[in-house]
Structure formats: structure tokens, C-alpha cells
């Protein structure tokens, strides 16, 4: 007697590929946790650089953020994974991409320290007021406290990232709701104070400190050019839009319809930033005396705003507590975003072979790229300690990374307008159509602003220029050396190594272990085999409702013989290619897929087994060039019947889809 058809004894579930997609609210909150957090320190830094005109420039930077958001929307509309590295790589080539990603790493590496130190300074300012009220007369120097606090939270998030705790957009949204309530309360109260006390508009006059002039002090003629001063001040305020790159990172997770939701997220980010960062900074300057902004409240401007409002002290202290708690949550959230973002970018460049494989080693227990996380966290801790809590110093350097990554991004998109005339789903406005090319007049204006600011920043920020160029050069060298080593290794071990994405997989003994995860009312099974033939998956992604449909993407690893007991094996490079294509497609449509690889002796039996075990409503196959659609359906029908439990009469639709055509029948 022949043995019964084998059950699927090994199922490999691709955990990294089971993306869950998020609403535009959540996407905006992820970006704002990074970008919005600059409201807590940008004003103070700008005030110390060029005096009481700072709110005008912070406001101008926030208006400019709207233009930069539009640049990012065009970039994301072109590339689902449209971060700086990808876009610069496409437009300016590999070497410039390495330079740009080095500058971006400088941005990420400093986001953590500036955010965590700022949070520490806010907490310190609160304790300074609260402890005496509680009868505790114990004072810790604010900067020392901030350094200890920043190191502690960095260590905490370092550990969390090693453990692979996902950055939760739900948590980000809750933080943003909390921050919004605190911000709204602060704003209403501040407006009331302004109404009661009256106010004067901040002056437009720029008063640069010697430190803020940097090398420009050696060029007195430059100081006489008004526009140069404007760009110098703009450059000292531009750190307020740090974190925009997070939009490109989060875009892959935005749910369908992606572009529409991206635009909504961008609009939300813009309005929030303008009102929260721009508005509150403006009100702080109207209410707090200038000497206090430059001194006592330089490191905790919004805390100072709460304390300087009209009303009884206990109420102001309560508001300060509220502001500090919400701000600290947002700022430490930005620290986590920087670790996640840096790790993501390094993984991305490692996939392209420009970071040595040593960095890609996965943690034995948690499966995370712990060496990359270690590297970023250690640099961040070193920066925190070396800065000795001087937020002005880090802020100035931070602007270097922010500005250069924005400049590379914008310049690349301008170049791509001329090099790639494929239709865009969305374009930055103000274009002149010449032939097939939309000449980006609007984007060129943005580029001019960025270029002037970059130039002035190079001249005015000694520490930022030196440290930024040094850091970029070091990272660029690491990428350059890594690439050389990887190339050499690829030549030596061409069959053993591959530069593909390391996919996190989970091995289950049986398909039954996965079934509880498939809990949506409707289920579609999409068998895949060829990364170049995913038309059928595309058709499913185009039409399926993500809320109500589980899309199971199934690849069968064909094992010879009838018995699959103990059959095992790692995922091959072909399978990696296949699943990478599946993930990219799912990201493009913003819909969740459940990719799995089963070990089977026949692909049709595996379809029938998984289909029946999961209770699917539809099986959608791509056409096979070898046998044709009808034979595929016949084989599936036979496999389906052979394994069907008697009495099961649930009709299942079987489809074969290819370009412009499909066959659809019922399996009974």
C-alpha cells in the first residue's frame, strides 16, 4: 500500500515580511515624534546663536518644512523605499550615495544625544522646582543630570532594540495625542497671557554671537550682506526640521491608498510642526523676557514658557510638569526612532554590500543586527558624554547632518527629473513642461535655499563643519573599505555568500501552528514561484481589502521522495529573491501579506493542504508557461479532492491570472 500523502512537516514563516500597514495618523505620529521634538530645543539654540529674532527664523524653517515634505512626497511616490541612499544612488551614483548616507548617519547618531540630553534638561528643570516644594533641598547640576539621564535612556533603548522590540506606531500615536493636549493647553494659556499682558513682535535684527559667526568673523565684508545674515540665521534654525528622513523610512508601512495617505500624513506633519514648533516658539519669545530665554530657559524653552505664564504658581508648576512629561516622552521617542532608523539605513546599505557582512551578523537569541545597533548606541553614548550636556554644541552639529541629507535628496530629485521621465504619481509643484521633461522650477528654488544655507553653515559652524566632515569621512571610509572587502570575498566565495537581504524566518513544525494568526474573515492563498511572475499577487493586492482579508503567499520547497519527516533546509538565494519581490510588492500596495515557505513533494498538494487547513476562500495562481492554466487547475482540483475531508462542501474559487486575462472556477 502506498503511504498517505505527507503532511507539511516544516513551515517557514517570514516574520520580517509580515508587515502590518499603518494609517496616515500613525505614520505622521512616527515622524512627529522625531521632527516635532525639536520644538523643545530649537528655539533656545537659535536664540543663543543670533538673538531675539529667533522666532521669525524658526517659523520660516517650519514653513520651509512644508516644501521639504513635498520633496519627500515626490521621492516616496517614485520609490517605496525612497530614503536618501536610494534616491542619491539612482541620481548621482554609488559614491555620492555613500557620502549622503554617511551624512545621514551623522544626523541619526546626533538625534539620539540631542533628544535625550534635552529630555534630561527638561526633567532637571522640573526637579529644580518640584524638589524644594517637597522639602528636598538636593540639587544636581542640570547638565550632569542630563548626561546621566541621556546615557540611561540610551542604554534602555539600546537593550530594547537588541531585543528587537518593534517601534510601535500605536505608542507613537499615543505620545503625540498626549503631546498635542499638552501643547494645546500651553498654547491657549499662552494666548490668554498675551491677551492679558499684551505683547511686542520680536525684532528682526540679527545679533550673532562670536561663536555663531564662526569663520565669518574673518570676512567682515560678508557680514555686510543682509541676505548672508538671513541664511546664517536660517542655518542656525534648520535643526528644527530634523527627522524628515523618517517619513521615507515609514512610507513603506503606510496603508493603501499609499500616496493619498502619504499626502495626508505630510499635511498633518506640516500643520502640527508649524503650530507646535513655530507657534510655541513664537509665543515663548513674546512672553519670556529675552535674558531668561538666553539664560535660565535656553535649554528648556517650553518649560520656561509654562512657568512664565499668567496664573498662580501651583497651576504653572502643574502645567510645567505636564509639558515636561509629554516632552520627555516625545524626546526619548526620538532617541528610539534614531536607533531604529540608523539600524534600518545600515541594514539597507549592507544589503547593497557597502557594509561588511560582519555587521550583519544576527543576534543568536533575538535575530537582530546587534552589531549595527551596538555601534550606533556606543557612538551616541560617546557623543552624550563628550558633549557634557551642552545642547547648543550638539544642536549646531546636528544641523550639519540634517541639512546635507536634505540637500542631497533635493538635488537628486532634480537630477532624476531630467534622467527619468517616467510618470510620477505626484510631483513637487511649479514645473515647466519641455518635451517629456517637467523642469522642476519649484524644486530648484528649494535647492537654491538649501545650497545657500549649506554654504553659510559651513562657514559659521566650526564644530559642526569639522565634526560633520570628519564623521562623514570616517563613515564613508568604512563603507569604502567594507565594499572592497565584500567584493574580494564575493570573488573568493562566490557560491557561499550572497549579498541579499537577511530574512528573519520562523520555523514551525506544522501549518496548524500558524492558523491562529490568520484571523481575518476572508482568506486568499497566493502561490508564488517566480519573482518575475507576480502578476497574480499584484491583482490580489490591487483588489483585496486589507482590513478583512488575510493574503497568504505560499512558496513550496520541493523535496524529493514521499516522506518529508525531518526534512529541513535553509532559505536559498532564489527563495530570498522571491520573497524580497513579494515584500516589495506588498509594500507598494500597503497591504499585509503572510509569506510562508513549505516543504512538500508537490506544489499543488501544498496549495491544497494549506488552503484547506486555513479555510481559504480563493486560491489565485500565476500562469505556468510550462503546463498552462487549464492543466494547473486540473492538478489543483485533483490535489484538492485527494486531501479533502469528506463532508466538506465549502466552495473555494481557484483562479489563474496572467496579463489581462484570468480563468476562474470553483473547487468542490
Amino acid at each position, binding site marked *: 500500500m502506498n503511504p498517505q500523502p505527507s503532511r507539511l512537516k516544516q513551515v517557514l514563516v517570514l516574520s520580517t515580511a509580515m508587515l502590518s500597514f499603518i494609517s496616515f495618523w500613525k505614520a505622521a505620529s512616527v515622524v512627529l515624534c522625531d521632527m516635532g521634538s525639536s520644538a523643545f530645543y530649537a528655539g533656545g539654540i537659535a536664540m543663543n546663536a543670533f538673538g531675539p529674532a529667533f522666532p521669525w527664523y524658526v517659523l520660516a524653517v517650519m514653513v520651509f518644512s512644508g516644501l521639504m515634505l513635498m520633496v519627500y512626497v515626490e521621492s516616496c511616490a517614485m520609490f517605496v523605499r525612497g530614503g536618501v541612499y536610494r534616491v542619491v544612488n539612482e541620481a548621482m551614483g554609488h559614491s555620492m550615495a555613500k557620502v549622503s548616507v554617511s551624512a545621514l548617519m551623522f544626523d541619526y547618531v546626533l538625534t539620539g544625544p540631542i533628544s535625550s540630553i534635552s529630555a534630561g534638561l527638561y526633567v532637571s528643570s522640573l526637579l529644580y522646582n518640584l524638589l524644594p516644594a517637597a522639602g528636598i533641598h538636593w540639587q544636581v547640576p542640570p547638565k550632569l543630570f542630563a548626561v546621566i539621564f541621556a546615557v540611561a535612556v540610551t542604554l534602555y533603548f539600546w537593550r530594547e532594540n537588541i531585543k528587537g522590540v518593534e517601534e510601535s506606531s500605536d505608542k507613537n500615536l499615543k505620545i503625540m495625542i498626549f503631546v498635542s493636549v499638552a501643547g494645546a493647553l500651553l498654547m491657549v494659556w499662552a494666548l490668554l497671557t498675551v491677551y492679558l499682558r499684551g505683547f511686542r513682535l520680536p525684532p528682526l535684527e540679527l545679533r550673532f554671537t562670536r561663536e555663531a559667526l564662526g569663520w565669518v568673523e574673518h570676512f567682515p565684508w560678508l557680514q555686510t550682506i543682509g541676505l548672508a545674515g538671513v541664511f546664517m540665521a536660517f542655518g542656525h534654525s534648520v535643526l528644527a526640521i530634523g527627522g524628515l528622513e523618517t517619513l521615507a523610512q515609514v512610507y513603506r508601512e503606510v496603508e493603501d491608498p499609499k500616496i493619498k495617505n502619504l499626502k495626508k500624513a505630510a499635511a498633518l506633519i506640516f500643520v502640527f510642526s508649524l503650530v507646535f514648533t513655530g507657534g510655541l516658539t513664537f509665543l515663548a519669545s513674546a512672553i519670556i523676557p529675552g535674558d531668561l530665554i538666553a539664560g535660565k530657559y535656553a535649554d528648556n524653552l517650553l518649560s520656561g514658557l509654562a512657568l512664565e505664564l499668567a496664573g498662580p504658581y501651583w497651576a504653572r508648576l502643574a502645567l510645567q510638569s505636564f509639558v515636561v512629561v509629554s516632552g520627555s516622552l516625545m524626546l526619548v521617542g526620538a532617541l528610539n526612532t534614531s536607533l531604529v532608523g540608523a539600524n534600518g539605513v545600515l541594514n539597507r546599505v549592507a544589503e547593497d554590500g557597502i557594509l561588511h557582512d560582519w555587521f550583519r551578523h544576527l543576534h543568536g537569541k533575538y535575530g537582530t543586527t546587534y552589531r549595527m545597533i551596538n555601534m550606533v548606541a556606543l557612538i551616541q553614548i560617546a557623543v552624550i558624554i563628550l558633549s557634557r550636556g551642552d545642547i547648543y554644541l550638539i544642536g549646531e552639529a546636528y544641523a550639519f547632518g540634517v541639512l546635507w541629507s536634505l540637500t542631497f535628496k533635493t538635488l537628486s530629485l532634480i537630477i532624476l527629473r531630467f534622467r527619468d521621465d517616467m510618470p510620477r504619481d505626484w510631483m513637487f509643484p511649479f514645473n515647466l513642461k519641455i518635451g517629456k521633461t517637467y523642469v522642476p522650477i519649484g524644486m530648484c528654488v528649494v535647492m537654491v535655499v538649501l545650497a545657500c544655507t549649506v554654504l553659510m553653515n559651513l562657514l559659521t559652524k566650526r564644530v559642526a563643519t569639522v565634526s560633520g566632515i570628519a564623521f562623514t569621512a570616517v563613515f564613508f571610509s568604512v563603507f569604502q573599505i567594507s565594499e572592497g572587502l565584500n567584493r574580494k570575498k564575493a570573488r573568493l566565495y562566490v557560491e557561499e555568500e550572497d549579498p541579499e537581504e537577511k530574512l528573519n524566518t520562523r520555523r514551525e513544525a506544522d501549518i496548524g501552528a500558524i492558523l491562529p494568526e490568520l484571523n481575518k474573515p476572508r482568506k486568499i492563498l497566493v502561490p508564488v514561484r517566480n519573482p518575475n511572475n507576480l502578476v497574480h499577487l499584484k491583482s490580489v493586492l490591487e483588489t483585496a481589502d486589507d482590513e478583512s482579508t488575510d493574503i497568504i503567499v505560499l512558496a513550496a520547497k520541493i523535496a524529493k521522495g514521499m516522506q518529508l519527516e525531518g526534512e529541513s533546509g535553509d532559505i536559498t538565494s532564489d527563495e530570498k529573491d522571491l520573497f524580497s519581490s513579494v515584500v516589495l510588492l506588498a509594500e507598494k500596495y500597503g497591504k499585509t501579506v503572510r509569506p510562508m515557505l513549505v516543504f512538500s513533494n508537490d506544489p499543488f498538494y501544498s496549495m491544497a493542504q494549506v488552503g484547506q487547513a486555513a479555510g481559504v476562500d480563493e486560491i489565485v495562481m500565476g500562469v505556468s508557461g510550462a503546463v498552462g492554466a487549464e492543466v494547473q487547475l486540473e492538478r489543483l482540483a*485533483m490535489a484538492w479532492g485527494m486531501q479533502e475531508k469528506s463532508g466538506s462542501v465549502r466552495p473555494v474559487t481557484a483562479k489563474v491570472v496572467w496579463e489581462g486575462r484570468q480563468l476562474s472556477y*470553483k473547487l*468542490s
Partner: protein
Amino acid sequence: MIRPEEIPLASILQSDYVFFLKGAPSKEETVKLLTDGLYPQVSTLVSARTLYERVTEVEKLNNVLPTGFYIPHAKLAEISQFHAALAVIPEGFLDPKSGITVKAALLLLTPNKPFFFQRHLNMLSKLSRLFQPEFIDSIVSMKNGTQVHEAIGKHE
């Protein structure tokens, strides 16, 4: 259990067309014996050679089921209803491609009309569901086509 939309196998497979094959014929010999055996049902519509060629053409892409059941089949534009013949092979033959021993093979001819393709799939599904190893073992021990026909009628 016959499902509402299904055609009973017993209504298309007559007991006269259940053949008990002696010895261990090869897969190709079994297909030949079945086409020859079934041919009288369609002799006015298609030549014996054409029938065999159509069946063997499809069989290049067909597989033996792991249950030890084999369904050679073809779609013919010349016919307007299902035709079937069953070979019961007590000693079985070894399918060289899969290493599976086949003890029952059913030749199914389906009208090549779009309307019939759904029924054709239903029939293939039904056949593979019905001919499980236990059922195949039971018909192998039967004496004649009538018993097999009755057993099919009872099981479906």
C-alpha cells in the same frame, strides 16, 4: 456524498467498462488498454488513433496521485458528455516517475467545451477524493465490474 452540482460517477462509468487487468502492465500499457476499452463508446465520433494520441498528449503533463490512483484524461471537442473506463490492477504497476504503485486508473473523457470545464474539474476532484487507498484496496479484492460499480455508487 454526491454534492448538488456533481455528476454521479456511477452514472457515467458503466460496469462493462470496469476492466480487471492481470499482471503488472506498464503505465503506457494501462493507458492503451483503457483507451481501447473505452473506444466503443466514442467510436462514431473519433478514431481510435486520435483518441489515444489525445490521451497520451495530456498524460505527458499528468501525475500519478500519491494515493496510488491515476486519472488519465483528455478533453475532446467531438463528444458531448463524459465517458469513463476504470482499470483495476490487483498486482499494480510501479510508476517510475514517482515510485508510487498504482492499483486503479480511470480514463476520463470530457467534452472540450467551456461549459464543461467546471464539471471536468469537479469530476477530477471527486475522483481523487473517492479513490483513497482504502477504497482502492477494497475494489482490488472484488470479483467483477458490477461489484465495483455498486461500491462506487455506495461510496460517492
